[in-house]
């Protein structure tokens, strides 16, 4: 069953391209939409038993795939963000041919990310990460404008460095354990936790993942890539791609494969804290809406990393939950920025203002998004942040938890300043004729806002469904 997550998008791309492309153009959008939506539904409503059921896929492909609750959370987020990006793409990419290419690449990236979150083999993990990365390079430079190409080139260099680091780590792990599957590596490492080769492999590996996930100071490519990419692509990139490539893998490797390591936890805490504080401070000074959101993304990633750095099950749960929340509210905010940009043709916050009056729906969902990001109850972001803070406190990292709480103030500050400059205040004369965004941009915004609110209010349900499985 799990292999279908990868095979169906692959076959869809083939089917779409084999016959005449012109014929399949209209069909492509709906097909990708249905695929993403069905993935969301399946991930939300069916337990892991269904996914791991071998009878459905048959024995033709014996893949090293497995779905646990972490993968399920990721599959859900992937589905929902891809859904949002596809809808936004239909609205924002005018050229028909280009939109067809966009849809195809979305399917490929969907397959790639599904592979990343379901594989249990460290080399296959690398392969799927590369698929996702290559598709993202192409997607960023989809419009072929100067900034996008520049950002894409920077991303390629960093991504290549990260891939090389990962491969080196994979080779060293192969040296230590003799295999590339997660269980084998995990078993071998628990026997040799402090061998120098192991530690070298681990440090190379996590640095590669830091680059992919954009933690400070490994983040150089990230603000450029997020802000220069076409709007639908930034939704995807910020919402899920780098989170899957960098952060999910970090959680998977550190939380589930490596044996607990105090020094590693310290590194995670330190990098996480630097990301939180420096990211938030950098976001405060931005004029470009998307660039501000990119730095905010770095800051939020910091929370996930320190949650992971606690080393306790509660911390890891907090990290996973924040990963989920972050992908929801960050894609929501990027969707809103896409809506604003599509109507006003600018992302410079100095030139905007008072849009809440003209774009009430965008303004309201944006408030929900930023309140969730700033950790205000009862939205879902509050729960994950408080869990991370509590976990840090319980694990004895009192200073880090204090910093995490204090950084919340900066988060609130930059989001408030964003909200004020874009949506509140007096509307500018030249923006008087602005209209609310189209349905294709409102639908994902409303959907994501509903999830943020729902996950916050129904937190006990989320908790009961997922937390228990992580505490096993």
């Amino acid at each position, binding site marked *: 069953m799990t292999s279908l997550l990868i095979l169906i998008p692959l076959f869809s791309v083939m089917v779409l391209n084999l016959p005449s492309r012109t014929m399949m153009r209209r069909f492509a959008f709906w097909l990708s939409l249905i695929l993403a939506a069905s993935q969301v539904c399946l991930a939300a409503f069916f337990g892991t038993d269904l996914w791991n059921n071998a009878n459905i896929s048959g024995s033709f492909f014996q893949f090293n795939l497995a779905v646990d609750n972490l993968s399920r959370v990721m599959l859900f987020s992937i589905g929902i963000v891809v859904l949002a990006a596809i809808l936004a793409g239909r609205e924002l990419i005018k050229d028909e041919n280009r939109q067809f290419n966009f849809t195809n690449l979305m399917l490929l990236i969907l397959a790639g990310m599904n592979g990343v979150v379901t594989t249990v083999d460290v080399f296959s993990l690398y392969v799927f990460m590369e698929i996702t990365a290559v598709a993202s390079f192409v997607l960023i430079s989809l419009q072929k404008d100067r900034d996008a190409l520049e950002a894409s080139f920077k991303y390629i260099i*960093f991504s290549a460095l990260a891939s090389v680091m990962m491969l080196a780590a994979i080779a060293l792990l192969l040296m230590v354990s003799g295999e590339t599957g997660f269980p084998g590596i995990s078993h071998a490492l628990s026997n040799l936790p402090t061998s120098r080769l192991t530690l070298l492999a681990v440090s190379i590996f996590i640095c590669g993942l830091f680059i992919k996930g954009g933690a400070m100071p*490994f983040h*150089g490519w990230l603000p450029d890539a997020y802000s220069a990419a076409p709007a639908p692509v930034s939704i995807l990139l910020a919402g899920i791609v780098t989170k899957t490539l960098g952060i999910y893998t970090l959680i998977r490797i550190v939380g589930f494969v490596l044996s607990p390591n105090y020094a590693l936890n310290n590194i995670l805490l330190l*990098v996480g804290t630097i990301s939180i504080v420096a990211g938030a401070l950098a976001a405060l000074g931005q004029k470009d809406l998307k660039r501000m959101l990119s730095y905010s993304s770095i800051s939020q990633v910091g929370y996930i990393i320190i949650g992971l750095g606690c080393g306790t099950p509660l911390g890891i749960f907090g990290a996973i939950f924040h990963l989920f929340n972050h992908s929801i509210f960050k894609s929501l905010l990027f969707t809103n920025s896409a809506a604003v940009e599509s109507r006003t043709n600018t992302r410079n916050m100095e030139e905007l203002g008072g849009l809440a009056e003209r774009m009430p729906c965008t303004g309201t969902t944006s408030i929900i998004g930023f309140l969730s990001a700033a950790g205000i*109850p009862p939205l879902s972001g509050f729960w994950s942040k408080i869990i991370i803070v509590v976990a840090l406190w319980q694990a004895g990292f009192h200073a880090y938890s204090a910093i995490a709480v204090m950084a919340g103030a900066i988060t609130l500050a930059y989001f408030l300043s964003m909200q004020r400059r874009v949506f509140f205040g007096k509307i500018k004369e030249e923006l008087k004729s602005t209209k609310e965004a189209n349905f294709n941009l409102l639908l994902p915004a409303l959907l994501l806002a509903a999830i943020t609110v729902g996950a916050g209010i129904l937190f006990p349900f989320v908790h009961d469904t997922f937390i228990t499985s992580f505490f096993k």
Partner: protein
Amino acid sequence: MDNVLLLFLIVPLIAGILALLIPKKVRGPVEVIVLSATGLNLLLAAVFFKSNLAYFCPWVPAIGLDFSLRFYHFSAFIILATAAFGFLIALYSTVSLSDKTYAKHFFAYFLITIGLVNGAVLSDNLLLLLFFWEGMLVTLFLMIAVGNKSAFKTAAKALIIVGITDLCLMVGIVLTGHLAGTRTISGINLPLDALGGLAFVFLMIGAISKAGSMPFHSWIPDAALDAPLPFMAFLPGALEKLVGIYLLSRISLDLFQLHPGSWVSTMLMIVGAVTIILAVMMALVQKDYKRLLSYHAISQVGYMVLGIGTAIPIGIIGGLFHMINNAMYKSCLFLTGGAVEKQAGTTDLEKLGGLGLKMPITFACFIVAAVSISGVPPFNGFFSKELIYDSALERNLIFYLVAVIGSFFTAASFLKLGHAAFLGKLRDEHRNVKEAPPLMLVPMIIIALGCIVFGIYNKLPIHALIQPILSPERLEGHQFAGWPANTALVVITIIVLAGAFLNHRFGVKKKGSGLKAVDHIHYAPVLHIIYDKAEKRFFDPYNIGLKIINIISEIAWRCDRAIDWVYDTLVVKVTYACTNQIRKAHTGNYATYLVWSLVGFLLIAVFLLQSGKM
């Protein structure tokens, strides 16, 4: 039966959400919803007032968060008061906001706030309390933000100040939970050792900041000008005092063992005393009806904090009694301010005058509330202040003196306010001013009557509402109701009040119309030299006194601004300096970024390899 507690949350919250959902153009249903929801809330509070209820439902066991509510005499008292004020102010607002476009949002947030306050008061779990507390922060922000154009800035200021203190509260809660090993409020009783003291201070910051004590007050005067007026009567006037002082007394009575003479108690008293004196000094020089009231709203908190801070029964009883009294007369005063604003179109004292005859009922309510707040016998403020004086004197003479001086200036400023707004010459543009509509008058009258009843028949509130809060053994051998025991203090109070009145007369004579009436004698050819000398000799002390007061007011103003400056400038500047450095570091040159990454990698690798060698 115990599930009925959920109604206290569900009724206002659902009603609030309903009010939000109703389209903007339809007005009637919103008001029906508000009145029926607040009415139902009041009914519930009254019906269940005497009961002891508890509701428990595990919510997030992993972090010790349970949905546990406890309804007993103390929370019942606060809930009843909240419900009563909520209903009266809702009644008032249906009229006073009738022409405002933001009325719908205001009412929705109003209802949600009531629900959250009920939740915060009822919750018997520290984290649950925090949950509702943070929710109140949001509605506070939203309620200010719906006001006039500059309201957003004020709202953001409030959000930042209250947000920071809420963070302190969060730290305090985590620390307390850690120390006590449980997060159930009724199961905590900690000694005030070093860590306990720290936890207490953090919790205290959260509580007194909600109540509006210095130095966390500076958003309140700004909000007075920008926010909708019923907001002022409702939140800073009544509700925030109720919840803030409720939490303060919970932490000092139940959560921690606060003893008279401990450093925490002294600290609380100092905070109280400083708040009393600085805020009242500020109030004295204000030229706006609402702004003047808002500084009094801060100053009165000082009395409550001072009373509770003494940690002796009479002080605590006095503080709590003052809390409910203050909520009454302060909301009444704000409501009169709202009536004046609605009818005369301004609250600037320089543009007001002589409204007493045009709006007699409003004026009467104002007088009742003003004499209550000034502590004139036999109104309610007098009795609670006497209790606080008594306790302050028992601790230290200085605190007593500060409290009495505060009382002097309170009286002086209300004489000024009443004189400027309701007496004096009626301005031409106010010829056609009429008395406020009945629906606005009814809440004022009810509250003003309450002030009188709670004063004359003070046994009722003290015995029924306040004394059960303290444990019976602490009340042993004390008598709080009735005429104050210490007659000497009463005499001093009356002397002080008389002094305030004389002072006012004097000031009016010197500056006001009275002085102008004798101008022709003053400047008569022969007499003016004698008058000059007499004036110099005779009036100098007054001038010096005025100057000193001005200087103190100036200092108070500076302190106020300094606190403001720390919030507005210092924090912001430091932050922006960091921000600019970080922005400068991002030159766009990817080789720089790569170098960062590689340095990071080398550090991490060296660190990990080192750790392996050990």
